[in-house]
């Protein structure tokens, strides 16, 4: 029912990550990019002495909204309708795509221009429209690079973060003509020249477009106001010049009051691009005769969000305002990049949002989804920078429990049971350690049996020449004192492991 927000056919995280970390160019790009943004963020966050209070207020406003989400959605619907907009409700991706396609078809147009939007990527809108004979043109520079390169986004904020200027130039030269105005002859790989080529490529399209599709950063329940923050002006072009505007908005984007924006418009730009304010923010309420589109449609989307809401630990993920600060500080993301997560929502937030949207609590998710809660070292840097204080490590651990209980990560479960048996008894542990030490030169890089899946995703530690226990005996001449006599545990029967491993 709920369509997957994951990229089709992506391998599980460990497999995808291995190929990513062995790409030095990618790692160089990612390191430079994530460190640049995190430094800028730290600088502008440091300008606000009340950041902690703003962050607490942002979290509390979102929690308050989520706890009465039905009421705020109804209020938003009424306010948008009163201002001349039309509100649609979509239970899942397929329904949202059908609503948008029908609205576009009703205009008689076969092309739409798009503002960068995570949610329309989540539902696969461009592909769904293409199947209906409608071509969707991405207009954000990074999204354009991704679309022209027949590529996948790898970062929430800068989706082409994995591409360098030479690659971008090559994509423009090769593909622009196919999509419209070709790249100018002699195009250099200077960012200014590439941005100018994008401007020329899209200009005529903006001026002639009749239908636009956007997402929104916020939807104010009290007034029906939608907010889109952006940098390039492509958003303003799409939101202002066409006759019809269709905005697809997740139900978690609602905020209760106009005044609540005072918190989020301080938190978001500083956390996201590391700017005091992004160059352009557009706010509109319904339709304004003579200014902007004459038809405005709001599509409210569930697509798994109510499943996230039902999990009392996991629901905090719905506070997310898509700033991507957690990506930029994550040691795992920095090394693997966004593609390894196999989803439009990469990084720490993706690791908790995607499994929940896909129903991890039901235990019926694919291995790719089940691997995501493990794509973290639980270092907590993501929680530190989150402007709405989502405790990502807490949710990751919670989701790991669900994966294990759902039988998702079988190998890890078996390994933990085996470890429990070994560590339960000092004699068993000593024996295992000695065997390991003596045979360490013979040990493979890969654990045998069910452990193989575990070691495939991790570098095996070096086995020391001598165990701590043996060193102690040699140095001090006596075995370490045993802890106070614990009641003897019956050994775990082998068949229990096998059963769990089934």
């Amino acid at each position, binding site marked *: 029912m709920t369509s997957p927000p994951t990229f089709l056919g992506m391998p599980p995280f460990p497999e995808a990550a291995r190929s990513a970390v062995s790409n030095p160019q990618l790692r160089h*790009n990612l390191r430079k*990019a994530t460190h*640049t943004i995190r430094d800028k963020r730290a600088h502008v966050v440091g300008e606000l002495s*009340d950041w902690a*209070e*703003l962050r607490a*207020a942002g979290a*509390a*406003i979102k*929690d308050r909204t989520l706890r*009465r989400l*039905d009421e705020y*959605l109804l209020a938003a619907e009424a306010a948008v309708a*009163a201002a*001349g907009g039309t509100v649609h*409700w979509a*239970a899942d991706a397929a329904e949202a795509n059908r609503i948008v396609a029908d609205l576009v078809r009703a205009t008689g147009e076969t092309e739409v221009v798009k503002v960068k939007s995570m949610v329309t990527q989540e539902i696969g809108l461009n592909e769904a429209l293409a199947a209906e004979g409608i071509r969707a043109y991405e*207009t954000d520079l990074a999204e354009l690079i991704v679309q022209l390169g027949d590529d996948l986004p790898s970062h929430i904020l*800068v989706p*082409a973060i994995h591409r360098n*200027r030479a690659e*971008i130039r090559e994509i423009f030269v090769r593909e622009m003509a196919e999509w419209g105005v070709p790249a100018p002859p002699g195009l250099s790989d200077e*960012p*200014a020249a*590439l*941005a100018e080529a994008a*401007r020329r490529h899209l*200009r005529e399209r*903006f*001026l002639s477009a009749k239908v636009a599709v956007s997402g929104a950063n916020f939807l104010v329940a*009290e007034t029906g106001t939608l907010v889109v923050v952006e*940098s*390039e002006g492509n958003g*303003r*072009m799409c939101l*202002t010049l066409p006759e019809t505007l269709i905005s697809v908005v997740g*139900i978690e984007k609602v905020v209760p009051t106009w*005044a609540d924006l*005072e918190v989020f418009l301080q938190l978001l*730009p500083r956390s996201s*691009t590391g700017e*005091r*304010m*992004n*160059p*352009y923010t*557009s*706010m*509109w*309420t*319904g339709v*304004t005769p*003579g*200014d*902007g589109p004459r038809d405005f449609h709001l599509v409210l989307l*569930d697509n798994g969000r*109510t*499943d996230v*809401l*039902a999990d009392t630990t996991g629901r905090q993920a719905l506070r997310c305002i898509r700033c991507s600060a957690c990506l930029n500080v994550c040691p795992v993301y920095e090394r693997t990049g966004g593609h390894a997560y196999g989803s439009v929502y990469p990084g720490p937030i993706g690791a908790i949002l995607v499994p929940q949207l896909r129903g991890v609590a039901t235990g019926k998710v694919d291995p790719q989804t089940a691997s995501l809660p493990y794509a973290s070292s639980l270092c907590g840097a993501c929680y530190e920078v989150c402007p709405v204080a989502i405790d990502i490590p807490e949710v990751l651990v919670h989701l790991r429990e669900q994966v294990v209980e759902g039988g998702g990560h079988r190998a890890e479960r078996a390994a933990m049971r085996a470890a429990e048996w070994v560590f339960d008894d000092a004699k068993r542990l000593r024996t295992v350690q000695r065997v390991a030490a003596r045979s360490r030169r013979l040990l493979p890089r890969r654990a045998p049996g069910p452990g193989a899946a575990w070691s495939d995703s991790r570098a095996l530690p070096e086995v020391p020449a001598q165990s701590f226990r043996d060193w102690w005996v040699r140095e001090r001449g006596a075995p370490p004192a045993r802890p106070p006599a614990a009641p003897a545990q019956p050994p775990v029967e082998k068949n229990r492991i096998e059963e769990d491993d089934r």
Partner: protein
Amino acid sequence: MSSRAAILARVRRALADVPSDDDFPVARDYARAHVAEGVLELFVAHLRDYRAVVHEVAEDALPDAVAAAVERRGARTVVTPAGLPPAWTAGLAEGVCLADGWAYEQLYDNSINNRPTVADRADRADILTTSTLDTADGVLTAAAVGIAETGTIVLDAGPGQGRRALTLVPDWHLCVMRAADVVASVPQALERLDPGRPLTWISGPSATSDIELDRVEGVHGPRTLEVLIVR
């Protein structure tokens, strides 16, 4: 069941743990503003930091300052929204101004959602086509609010600000900002703004950092933002 009913039912089911009389408090102990003095100086510094061109002028010097800016830019045509004070363009040669007739008018004002209507008055100019806007060299507007802490200018379709396309399509935006309309902070700005109006918040010229995070000014919006601050 409609999807509307289904989604609302799923939301209510998901919130079974939340008491029906739940009142989740929001502590608003953050600052209303981070600066009290030097607001205008901070506004100028932050505008320049994001590479806007800024001049400070006295009220009676404004017509000359507008004319000088137009001449520096080499602009032959400048879009002027309805409601722009005629004195501002008194120093311009004839034929430079391209007047746009659209004006925001409230149908009623008893709701937070004030609805406007298109001006249909004989004394107003025609509404310019998008292709005319595309050939214009620039646009001259007033502004509703300035925000010092973020270096932001907010347009709200008020007199002399026009519809949103006017400050989007031409490549040069010359904006007159009255010092009295500059506030310190985002919270103070929102208090002054009407959510029923179409609002555009502008912080420096159009920009992108999508290529190796190198900031490039000017993608689709005006590539140059020039601000005349009237003390």
